[in-house]
Structures are given as structure tokens and as C-alpha cells.
């Protein structure tokens, strides 16, 4: 027993530390102490991870082998609670580093329970990526789907409540799919190992397909992407930052582990990368626009997973890492406007540059990164996936992905900053101006610090990609900075800018709501509920009345005295015989 316990504490799970540590936050009396503690939690996780990669808890093995640490017997399976490999360590690192920057950004949030929800979210995400079997994974994914529910709910508006409920419904659906898939898979193969799964069409692969469906809903793959833009834009300003990073990227991790090399994913990913951009053109809300860019960028990763070659998997993993960093930065930038002036709608903003220049430039670092400018981190990871598409000689996938690069630059590099900070105005509109102080630092300083660390990481990884490439699962031979690639992408952006400038009036904000694929769920769903409440209920009550009437009639007839005389044992016998005959007929035909 004791040896078992000693074995259990041979590694401390950073997810557990962050999760349980987060629960203590509301009980810390001093405000200052609370803030320090809040910042220390991800650092504790980081320390554990650093010690792990130094080999303190057992020598690390090269990909794809893993180090298994906590094994717990459960029913007649063995739960592999902790499995560490190169990929999970990579994701673990970026999760805790991003959490640290996000915690700085969220430092002054008044509601302690928001911190708790965020930390449980981060902790369970770490649990999911270190899970070695499907049951543990499912358990962590379920916690992970609940924590953001509260982050949305804490916004306190009626709209947010609706978004939170829709969010949790989507994730319950995906969770049920994953669980059903796991049960079917475990039943047929007897294994619950979280590893590569066979995939194909047809009943034999039902379990795999259900798990795949669950994962792609979590990864917000088209056509199941609408939950992301719907819910992320309604969460609290700091809560939404956490949400950008963990759910979708954990899904990407799961896809890499289980479904790498599934051609369906390659196509879905490439379509997703482009489709989200069309909706982003029409979007009027800064945070919804960034949400569509999360969807679009995830398209690159999903496509990379689908291609399944070494460089594609490397590209997907590297892009997931870079994406967490720059997308948090973008969301923070849009969130700055939201925190300071109370809105991120394009038609109400413009001209903020004079009052928030620092957040503008920090945002632009994120904007250049997501577009994939040379020397920013998007470049070193996105080009890897595009190169993978070139190497498998698939021109359509290549054109879709390269085209998405142009669209990304158009929106996050040009449209959003133009509409929020510039619009050719020197002063913001009057009602916005009233909320601003006469200084260049309207954004709270801790927010700027959080953004600055992320911006530094964006540039650092972009200039010195070796540190990232060394952590990738497969050895990297890819060289990002070649003349062809740098020149091509620069020319692409120069001309995209020209296109934007010509049509800039068209992309300015107009109030409105952009319908998404969830229309096909929400409106028919509403009609179904209407149908249930109207015709179905009245039909039900009609049926009820008729049955009651018939019963009353039967009872009335039975109460008549002469019937009692007719109901002889003979008559009852006939009745029983008739029902037995009917029942045997039923059996004969049915069996």
C-alpha cells in the first residue's frame, strides 16, 4: 500500500496542482496575497514541467514512446492517468506559460470565482493532455467543458446566459459522442489506450467515428464551429482569453494522438480555414472576428493532422503552440477596448489610437503573427503546414491554405486595427471619448504587461524558432527563412493590403448579426419546440379527452346491472382464449 502511495507521488500532476490550488483562491484573506498566489499557480506547474523534462521523474523517451507514471486499476482496466511524451510536454509548457500571462491580464478581476473557474479549466486541460487512457481523457474533457460555462455565465447578461447554455449543450453532445465511441471501442477491442485509432467508413468503425465527431466538435471544425464564435464573444473580457487557448487546442492534441493521417480531416480543415474568413468579413464585433480567426487557424492544424506526414504533424503541433500565444494576444487587444470603453463593436469605435497606442502596437504584433509575417511566430509554424500541403502535391489544399493566409492578414492585420484604433479619425466618437482619460495609458498596466510578455514570445519564437523546433515530436529539417518563402509571403501581403485599401469602405463595421451554421440547429429546434408546445400538446390533450370519454362510457356500461349476469365464466374463458391466440400470433410473426 505504502509503496503504491510512494509511486503515486513520484510525479506531481501540474493539472492537479493548478486545479486544487485554484479552489483555495476565494479563501485567501488579503487581496495582495491572493494576487501573488494566483500568479504562482501556473509557475508551480511550469516548475514541475521543467523538472520533468530534466528527467527528474524518469528518463524521457523519444517520440512516439511515452513515459507512464500513474497507473491505477479500475474495473478490469488499468487507468493510465499520466503519460508523458514529447507532444504532451510541448502542449503542457505552452498551457502553463499562457496561463501565467492570462493570469496577469486577469489580475484585477473582482469575482474570485472567475479565477477558480479559470484555474480548474487550465488544470483539467493539463489533465487531458497528460491522460494515457480514454476514461481519464473523458473525465478531464468533461470538467473542461464545464469550467468555461461559468466563465461565460459570470458576464451576467441575459445574452451571456443563453450563450452559456448553448455552449454547454454543444459540449454535452460532443461528450456523449466521445463516451459512446469509447464504450464501443472498448467493447470491441478491449483496450482503452489513448492511442492511434483505425479509421474508415462503415459500421466496423462506428466507435472511431463517434470519437472523431466528438473531437471535431471540440475543435470547432466546420460545420460544427458556431459554438465558438457564439460563446467566446459573450464571456467576460478576461474569461474569454482563457477560452481561446484550451478547449480547441486540447481537441487538436487528441486528434494528433488518435486520428493523424485521416484524409477527411485534411479537407475539413482546409475548408474550415477559408470558410470562417467569409463570415469574418461581415463581422462587426471585435471579439467575434477574433473568434472566426481561431476557427480559421484551427483549420491549419486540422488539415495538418489530416495530412499525417511528419512535417504536417510537426506543423500542426507548432502552430497550436504559436496560435495559443498570438491568439491570446489578439483577444487581449480586442478585450482592452472592451474593458476601457465598454464595447468592441466596429461601428461605434475608431480613432482610439491617440488614447491607447501601446495596446495598439502590442495588438499589431499579434496581428502580424497570426498573418504569418516573417520574424513573427505565425510564419515559422504556418509555413510548415503549407509546405506539408505542397509536399503531398495537393494543389487545392495548398491554395485554400495560402488563400486563408491572405484573408487572415486582411482581417486581423488590417480590418480590426483599422476599425478599432484608426478609421482615419483623430478622435473617437463622442460617447466613446467621454469614457477615456486624457492620457496615453488608458489600458490598465497589468493588462499591458500580460500582453507584452505574449508579444515578446511572438517575436522571440519568430526570430529564434530552433527552441520550438527542438521540442516538436519529429526531428525538424524544415528551414523557414528561405528566399522563396520570405519573398512570396511579403509580396502576398503587399498586394493584399492594396486590395484592402481599395475596398476598405466595404469592410467597415455595420451593425448586424451574422448568421452561422447554428441557424440549422436553432431555428428548426425552435420550430420543433413550438410544434411540441402547440399542435403536439393539443393533440395530446385531445387524445387524452377521447380516451377518458371511452373509459367513462365503458365504466358506465359495466355499471349497468344486466351486464353482470351476462359475464359468465364461459364468456371470460372466451376472452382469455382470444387474447392468448392474439399473443401467439404476435409471437409467431415477430420471432
Amino acid at each position, binding site marked *: 500500500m505504502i509503496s503504491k502511495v510512494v509511486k503515486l507521488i513520484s510525479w506531481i500532476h501540474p493539472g492537479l496542482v493548478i486545479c486544487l490550488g485554484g479552489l483555495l483562491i476565494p479563501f485567501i484573506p488579503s487581496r495582495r496575497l491572493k494576487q501573488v498566489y494566483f500568479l504562482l499557480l501556473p509557475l508551480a506547474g511550469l516548475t514541475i514541467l521543467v523538472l520533468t523534462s530534466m528527467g527528474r521523474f524518469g528518463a524521457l523517451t523519444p517520440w512516439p514512446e511515452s513515459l507512464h507514471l500513474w497507473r491505477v486499476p479500475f474495473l478490469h482496466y488499468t487507468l493510465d492517468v499520466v503519460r508523458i511524451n514529447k507532444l504532451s510536454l510541448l502542449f503542457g509548457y505552452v498551457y502553463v506559460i499562457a496561463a501565467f500571462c492570462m493570469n496577469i491580464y486577469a489580475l484585477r478581476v473582482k469575482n474570485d470565482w472567475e479565477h477558480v473557474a479559470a484555474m480548474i479549466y487550465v488544470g483539467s486541460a493539463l489533465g487531458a493532455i497528460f491522460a494515457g487512457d480514454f476514461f481519464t481523457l473523458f473525465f478531464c474533457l468533461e470538467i473542461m467543458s464545464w469550467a468555461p460555462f461559468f466563465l461565460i455565465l459570470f458576464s451576467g447578461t441575459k445574452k451571456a446566459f443563453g450563450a452559456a*447554455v448553448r455552449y454547454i449543450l454543444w459540449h454535452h453532445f460532443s461528450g456523449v459522442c466521445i463516451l459512446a465511441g469509447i464504450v464501443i471501442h472498448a467493447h470491441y477491442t478491449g483496450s482503452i489506450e489513448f492511442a492511434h485509432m483505425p479509421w474508415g467508413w462503415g459500421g466496423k468503425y462506428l466507435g472511431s467515428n463517434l470519437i472523431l465527431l466528438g473531437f471535431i466538435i471540440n475543435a470547432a471544425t466546420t460545420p460544427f464551429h458556431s459554438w465558438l464564435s457564439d460563446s467566446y464573444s459573450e464571456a467576460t473580457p478576461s474569461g474569454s482569453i482563457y477560452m481561446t487557448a484550451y478547449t480547441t487546442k486540447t481537441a487538436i492534441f487528441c486528434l494528433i494522438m488518435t486520428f493523424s493521417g485521416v484524409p477527411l480531416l485534411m479537407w475539413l480543415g482546409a475548408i474550415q480555414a477559408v470558410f470562417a474568413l467569409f463570415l469574418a468579413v461581415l463581422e462587426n464585433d471585435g471579439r467575434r472576428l477574433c473568434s472566426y480567426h481561431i476557427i480559421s487557424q484551427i483549420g491549419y492544424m486540422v488539415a495538418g493532422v489530416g495530412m499525417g506526414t511528419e512535417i504536417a504533424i510537426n506543423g500542426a503541433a507548432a502552430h497550436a503552440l504559436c496560435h495559443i500565444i498570438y491568439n491570446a494576444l489578439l483577444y487581449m487587444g480586442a478585450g482592452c477596448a472592451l474593458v476601457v470603453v465598454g464595447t468592441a463593436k466596429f461601428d461605434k469605435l475608431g480613432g482610439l489610437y491617440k488614447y491607447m497606442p501601446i495596446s495598439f502596437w502590442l495588438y499589431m504584433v499579434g496581428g502580424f503573427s497570426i498573418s504569418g509575417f516573417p520574424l513573427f511566430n505565425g510564419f515559422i509554424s504556418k509555413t510548415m503546414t503549407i509546405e506539408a500541403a505542397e509536399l503531398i502535391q495537393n494543389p487545392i489544399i*495548398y491554395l485554400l491554405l495560402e488563400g486563408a493566409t491572405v*484573408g487572415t492578414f486582411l482581417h486581423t492585420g488590417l480590418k480590426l486595427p483599422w476599425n478599432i484604433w484608426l478609421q482615419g479619425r483623430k478622435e473617437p466618437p463622442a460617447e466613446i471619448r467621454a469614457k477615456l482619460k486624457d492620457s496615453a495609458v488608458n489600458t490598465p498596466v497589468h493588462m499591458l504587461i500580460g500582453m507584452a510578455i505574449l508579444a515578446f514570445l511572438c517575436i522571440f519564437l519568430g526570430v529564434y524558432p530552433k527552441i520550438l523546433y527542438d521540442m516538436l515530436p519529429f526531428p525538424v529539417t524544415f528551414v523557414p527563412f528561405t528566399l522563396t518563402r520570405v519573398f512570396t509571403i511579403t509580396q502576398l501581403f*503587399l*498586394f493584399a493590403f492594396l*486590395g484592402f485599401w481599395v*475596398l476598405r469602405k466595404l469592410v467597415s463595421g455595420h451593425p448586424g448579426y451574422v448568421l452561422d451554421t447554428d441557424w440549422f440547429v436553432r431555428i428548426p429546434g425552435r420550430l420543433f419546440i413550438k410544434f411540441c408546445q402547440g399542435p403536439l400538446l393539443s393533440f395530446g390533450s385531445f387524445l387524452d379527452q377521447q380516451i377518458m370519454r371511452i373509459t367513462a362510457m365503458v365504466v358506465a356500461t359495466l355499471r349497468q346491472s344486466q351486464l353482470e349476469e351476462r359475464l359468465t365464466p364461459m364468456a371470460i374463458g372466451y376472452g382469455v382464449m382470444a387474447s392468448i391466440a392474439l399473443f401467439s400470433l404476435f409471437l409467431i410473426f415477430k420471432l
Partner: protein
Amino acid sequence: MNKLRIYPKKLFWRLYWIILLVSLVLDFFWLYRHAFHYHFSFQYLPQFFAIFGLFGCMVLILIAKAMGIIIVVDEDYYQKNRAGRQDDQQGGQID
């Protein structure tokens, strides 16, 4: 002050056009010198990426705007569609 604000704008545009022209010339030059290593034959077309960037961007905006005629609706679309339902008065429905 006014002059100072306008000046960088002019400079920006001048620089932009110069860089644009230089990139066009360089593209021809490096293509001629076989400096590029692409994977598809269409990438070797002269100015492929310039055209792709310019038209990709404009086509994206125009198609999206055309889509917008149908899919952009009032901001309270989902709330409005619900009006007149029985349970709305009771406040029972969430979405």
C-alpha cells in the same frame, strides 16, 4: 501639429508604392535567375503571388459581401423571432 500628422502618411504611401514596384521587379529578376524553389508549376507564373494576394483579398471581400445580403440580420434576430410565444411572458425559455 497638423503638418506633423500628415507627413508620415505621405511618407508611408510613397514607401509603399516604391516597395510594391521593387517587389514586382524583383519577382521577374529572381524568376529569371531561377532563384525560387516551388512545388507546383502554377507558382512559377510571373507575378502569381501578387495577383493571388490582390484578387484573393478582393474576391474574398466581394463574395462575403454578397453572402451578407442573406446572412446579415438584425442584432436581436434570435430574440425577435421568439416574440409572441406563450412561454415568453413566463420567462421560461432560454436562448
